[in-house]
């Protein structure tokens, strides 16, 4: 493990070492749960007939499971590409506050735009939670490399999960194959409940859920768009006029 000599603190070998330590940090309980959900995504890819290499590319590049599920599910349902791009874009909004809040911990003492963009790419819910847990323990000069290593480690594990799920579904007996497919909705449902704090969150969950079946076959594959924008806007407006909030 420690093939690199322990020399000067600002040695050029240090970033590689922080990177490797970050990758090792990816192997944890949240990392295991993440891999399980990507095994479910791999099963979904197989179920929908989506090509595996493109599926792996989506894990590497999109690196946000809701967006990936919207993309492959929408394609299978015959949604139009512009409508899908809008739905994917809307689903990614939650990444912005995550990047903004985690960036001070990933930036390090000498900020560089490129390294900030690389670190920001790896930000998704698991990276965000694990970053807050692990990065404060890392020396500030090692944080950008450590964060990149952590994100890369989680990505590699998730790509392995995607491939395993894809090839496993066909080989599993019925009850276990459906169990694999349930991993995606169950992890999203728990994620929603975990992150819901204010009335507007619960309203958005309730309205998004109930509008979705009503618009299930809307023309142009815009059902997610209507459920998301319609339900979200309604939730936002209702929460604004709700009594009992500070004036």
């Amino acid at each position, binding site marked *: 493990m420690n093939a690199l000599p322990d020399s000067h603190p600002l040695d050029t070998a240090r970033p590689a070492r922080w990177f490797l330590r970050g990758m090792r940090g990816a192997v944890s309980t949240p990392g295991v749960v993440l891999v399980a959900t990507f095994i479910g995504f791999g099963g979904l890819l197989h179920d929908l007939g989506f090509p595996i290499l493109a599926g792996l590319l*989506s894990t590497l590049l999109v690196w946000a499971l809701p967006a990936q599920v919207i993309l492959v599910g929408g*394609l299978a349902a015959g949604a139009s590409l512009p409508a899908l791009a809008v739905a994917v874009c809307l689903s990614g909004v939650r990444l912005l506050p995550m990047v903004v809040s985690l960036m001070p911990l990933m930036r390090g003492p000498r900020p560089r735009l490129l390294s900030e963009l690389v670190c920001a790419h790896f930000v998704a819910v698991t990276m965000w939670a694990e970053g807050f847990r692990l990065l404060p323990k890392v020396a500030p000069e090692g944080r950008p490399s450590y964060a990149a290593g952590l994100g890369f480690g989680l990505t590699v594990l998730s790509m392995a999960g995607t491939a395993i799920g894809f090839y496993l579904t066909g080989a599993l007996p019925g*009850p276990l194959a459906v169990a694999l497919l349930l991993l995606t*909705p169950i992890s*999203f449902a728990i994620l929603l409940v975990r992150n819901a704090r204010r009335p507007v969150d619960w309203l958005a969950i309730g309205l998004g859920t109930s509008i979705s*079946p009503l618009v299930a076959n809307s023309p142009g594959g815009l059902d997610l768009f209507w459920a998301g924008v319609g339900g979200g806007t309604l939730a936002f407006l209702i*929460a604004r006029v709700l009594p009992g909030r500070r004036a």
Partner: protein
Amino acid sequence: MNFLTTELGAMLVVIFIGFLPNEVWRVLGVLFGRRIDPASAWMQWVQAVATALLAAVVARLLLVPSGALVALPLWLRVGAVGSGIAGFLIVRRSVLAGVLVAEAVLVAGAWWLGVSP
């Protein structure tokens, strides 16, 4: 079937319809992060839309599923997810516990019904 289901076509879709529209928010977070107020009404609306959209994705996966999940009755799909949420709330808000409870309910139900997709 068509170009979109070939590896190359699907990869182009992943890049242009998946990667770019999604990555925009991360890039904006880096470029304007210090100037964006997360508590502003605009950001609150955008967050509510993202939450409703994710809830709609879950509802679509459960209520109008495609593929092997169709073989299960609706009550079992919804019941499994409902018991998963209950498991999460009861067992110290553990995501792992919630997932395991939901899967246990689903596998037991599917086995009992003799599901074979």
